[in-house]
C-alpha cells in the first residue's frame, strides 16, 4: 500500500470515530484526575512501628525507600514510577534544546564533531572538539580574550538546559555585573562534553570560562545541570584543574543561588590566578 492510501484510510477512520464520539463527550484527563502529580505517586508503610523514625528516614533522601511492597516485590505504582522516571531520563538524553528557547537568551549555536546522538554516546572524545565551521563561527562572532566566557551546552540532558537556564543564566549575569566582571559573547554548543571547554579556551583565550551543561540524567532528576569553571582553559587541562557546582535543578541546588554563586567563584579564580583543587574557596 502506498503512503497516500494509508493516510486516506486513517483520515476516514478518524472522521467516523469523531462522528461516533462527539467532542463534548470526550473525557478531559484533568477533570477526571488522570494527571498524576508527585503526591499521587506516593506510597508509604501502612502502619510503621515508629512513625517519626520512618518519616525522618524518608525525608532524608529522595531515594525510593519506605515505599512498601506486595509479597516480595515492589507495588505496581512504584514499578510504574520507576519506569516513568527511566523513560524521562532516556528522553532527556535523546532530546534537543529548541532553537527559539536559545534565542530568548541571544545564544547562537555551534556544534562539536559528535555527528549524531548515537555517535555522541559512543564516542565522548568527539564531543570535546568543535567542528571547523564552529571554530570559524566563534572566531568571527565572539569577543576575543574576554575576562569571563559563558558557554551553554546540552551535554547529556537537553531538558536540564530548558528547565534551569532561565534561572541560572540571568542570576549569573547579575552576579558578574555586581562583581564588576566583564563577559564575552556567550553561545550554545550542541553535543558538548565538559572538556570542550579546553578547545574553546584555545580559540578564545578567556581568563575564566564557565560551562553550563546538562548532567547525565538519573532516576531522581532528568533535568539536572552542572556549572564547570576553569581558569585559562586550554589543551592539557586535567579534571583537578576545574571546579564544579553540580545537581542544579529546582529540587537540588537552587538554580538562582547557584547562578549567583558562580560569579563569586570566577572572581576568586581571577584573584588567585588558578582553579580546581588549588583554588581556595
Amino acid at each position, binding site marked *: 500500500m502506498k503512503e497516500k492510501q494509508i493516510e486516506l484510510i486513517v483520515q476516514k477512520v478518524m472522521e467516523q470515530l469523531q462522528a461516533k464520539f462527539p467532542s463534548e463527550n470526550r473525557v478531559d484527563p484533568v477533570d477526571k484526575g488522570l494527571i498524576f502529580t508527585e503526591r499521587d505517586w506516593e506510597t508509604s508503610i501502612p502502619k510503621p512501628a*515508629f512513625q*517519626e*523514625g520512618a518519616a*525522618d528516614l524518608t525525608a532524608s533522601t529522595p531515594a525510593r525507600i519506605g515505599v512498601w511492597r506486595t509479597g516480595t516485590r515492589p507495588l505496581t505504582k512504584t514499578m510504574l514510577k520507576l519506569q516513568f522516571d527511566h523513560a524521562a531520563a532516556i528522553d532527556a538524553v535523546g532530546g534537543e534544546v529548541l532553537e527559539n528557547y536559545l534565542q530568548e537568551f541571544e545564544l547562537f549555536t555551534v556544534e562539536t564533531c559528535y555527528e549524531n546522538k548515537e555517535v555522541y554516546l559512543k564516542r565522548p572524545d568527539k564531543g570535546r572538539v568543535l567542528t571547523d565551521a564552529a571554530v570559524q563561527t566563534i572566531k568571527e562572532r565572539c569577543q576575543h580574550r574576554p575576562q569571563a566566557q559563558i558557554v551553554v551546552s546540552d551535554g547529556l540532558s537537553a531538558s536540564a538546559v530548558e528547565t534551569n537556564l*532561565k*534561572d541560572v543564566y*540571568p*542570576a549569573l549575569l*547579575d*552576579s558578574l*555585573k*555586581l562583581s564588576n566582571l566583564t563577559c564575552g559573547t556567550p553561545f550554545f554548543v550542541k553535543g558538548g562534553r565538559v572538556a570542550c571547554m579546553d578547545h574553546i579556551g584555545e580559540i578564545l583565550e578567556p581568563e575564566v570560562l564557565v560551562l553550563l551543561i546538562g548532567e547525565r540524567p538519573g532516576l531522581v532528576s532528568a533535568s539536572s545541570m552542572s556549572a564547570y569553571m576553569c581558569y585559562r582553559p586550554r589543551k592539557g587541562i586535567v579534571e583537578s584543574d576545574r571546579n*564544579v*557546582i*553540580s*545537581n542544579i535543578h*529546582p529540587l537540588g*541546588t*537552587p*538554580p*538562582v*543561588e*547557584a*547562578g*549567583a*554563586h558562580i560569579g*563569586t567563584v570566577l572572581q576568586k579564580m581571577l584573584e588567585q590566578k588558578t582553579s580546581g583543587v588549588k583554588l*581556595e*574557596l
Partner: protein
Amino acid sequence: MSTVVIKSVGIDIGTSTSKFMMSELTLGRVSSNFSLPQFDIIQRKVTYVSEIISTPLKNEEEIDLPLLVSWLEKEYQQVGLTLSDIKSGAVIITGETAIKKNADALIHYLAERSGDFVVAIAGASLEAVLAGKGSGAARHSQSSRAAIANIDIGGGTANVVVFQQGKVLETITFHVGGRLIEMNSLGEVLTVSPSLKPWLFFKKFQVEKGMRLSLPKLVEITSALCGDLLDVLAGGKSISSLECLVHSTSCPALPRIHEVMVSGGVGRLAVEEPPATLEDVAKFNDIGPLLASELMKAVKRYHFTVVEAAQTSSATVIGAGTQTTKLSGATILIQPELLPLRNVPVVKAALTEMDFEEQIEQVFLKGKEWFEGNDHLPFAIGLGGTLYLSYVKLKEVADIIGELYAMNFPLAEVLAVVCENDMAKALGQALRLQTNYQVICIDQIGIEHGDYIDIGAPLNDELVPVVVKTLAFS
C-alpha cells in the same frame, strides 16, 4: 577555609546562683566540593566551667552590678581571655532574676562588655531549651524513640522542655524552685517568693514570713509541689487546672512523655543524700535540698523512666555558651562594614504565588507601628514559604520589597532580609542591583514574626553567626 575554631562564652545569672563557662566551637564545611558551600558547627567543646557563685544582690529588687562585673573580669583573667578573643556567646538571665528592676540594663551591659558577639538572651522557653541541650537530654533523645522531658529546676523556676529525636516538641515553665521559700535551720521562714503565693493559697498552705515550719510540714509542701508538677507532665492534671503554678507554656496540653531528666541546681542536689534533719534541709537557707529529694521520691510513682543528666547545675550556662549561636547559609550577600547588628526586630512574610505584594505592605505597616524609632534600620524582613522562586519572580520580589520599603521608611538606609530557604545570595544581588540600599541578605535561618535577631561580623567572606531571640525584653 576548611575548619575554623571560635571561642564562645556562656554567662548565666540565675535566681540563686551565677555561672560562667567557655567553649570552643569548631565550624566546618558540611557540603561536598561539588555543591554550594554549607557550613555548620561540627564540634562543641566545653573548655572551662567556673565555680558557682551566689548571684550578688544589692537588695531584694536589684542585682549588684559592680560585684557581678568584677567577678566576671576575674574569670576572664583566670582563663587568659581578652574580649577580642571571644567571637560568640550569650548572657542569659534566668528564673526570678529576670524580673528584677535592673535585669534588662544589666544583661545588655554584660553582653556588650563580654566580647565581640556576645548577646543578651532571656525568656523561660529559651531557657528550658538551652538547659535541655546543656544537660544532655537533647542528645539522649536522638538515640531513643522516647519523648524525654528535661526538668531544669533552679532557685526560682522549673523549666521543662520535651525533646523527641533531638527536636523540641514543647516547653513549659513552673513556679517551682529551691529558693521560693527561704528558711533557717530552725525552720523559720525568712521569705516567701510572691510567685509561689498563689499556689500556696490554692492548696491552702499557710506559709508566712516569720512562721516556723516543722520538717513534716515542709515535706508535705514540697511533696505537693513536686506532685503537681509531675501530674501536669504525666497528663494527670491539665495545665489550665493549675494555672497558679504554671509560669508559661508553649501549648495547652503536653505530648506523652516517657522519660525525664532533672538538671539545674536542684538536679544536682537530687543525686545527694536526702536531708534527714531541718539543719540538713536549710543547708543553703532554702528548701532546695528537700525539693530535690521529694522530687526524686515522687517521680517513682509515675510511669517515667529517669535518665541521669550529663550536666546538672551547669546545664543552662553550657547550653547558652554552646547552643545559642547558629550559622547562616554560606552563599549570602552582606556588606561587612554594617555588621554586627544587635537586637533587630523581625517582621515576617511568606513567599506565595498570589498576594505577596499585599502581604509585604501589611507587614511593613505593622512594623512601622511597632518599631518606630530606628529610622536607619527599622526591622529585618523574614521571608518564609516553600515557593520555588524563578529568577523572574525573584526580581519581582526584590522590586516589591524595595519600592514598599522606600515608600514606608524614607529615612532607612539599610535593608536586612532573613530568608528561610537557600536564596539569599540571588535575592541579595537583585536587591543591590535594583535598589539603592545597603543590603544584608542572609538565609537558612528559621525566624518568626516578633523575634529579634543579632547578626555577627562575618566569619569568612560569606558566613555570619546569628542568634535568634524568640522572646525579647519588654
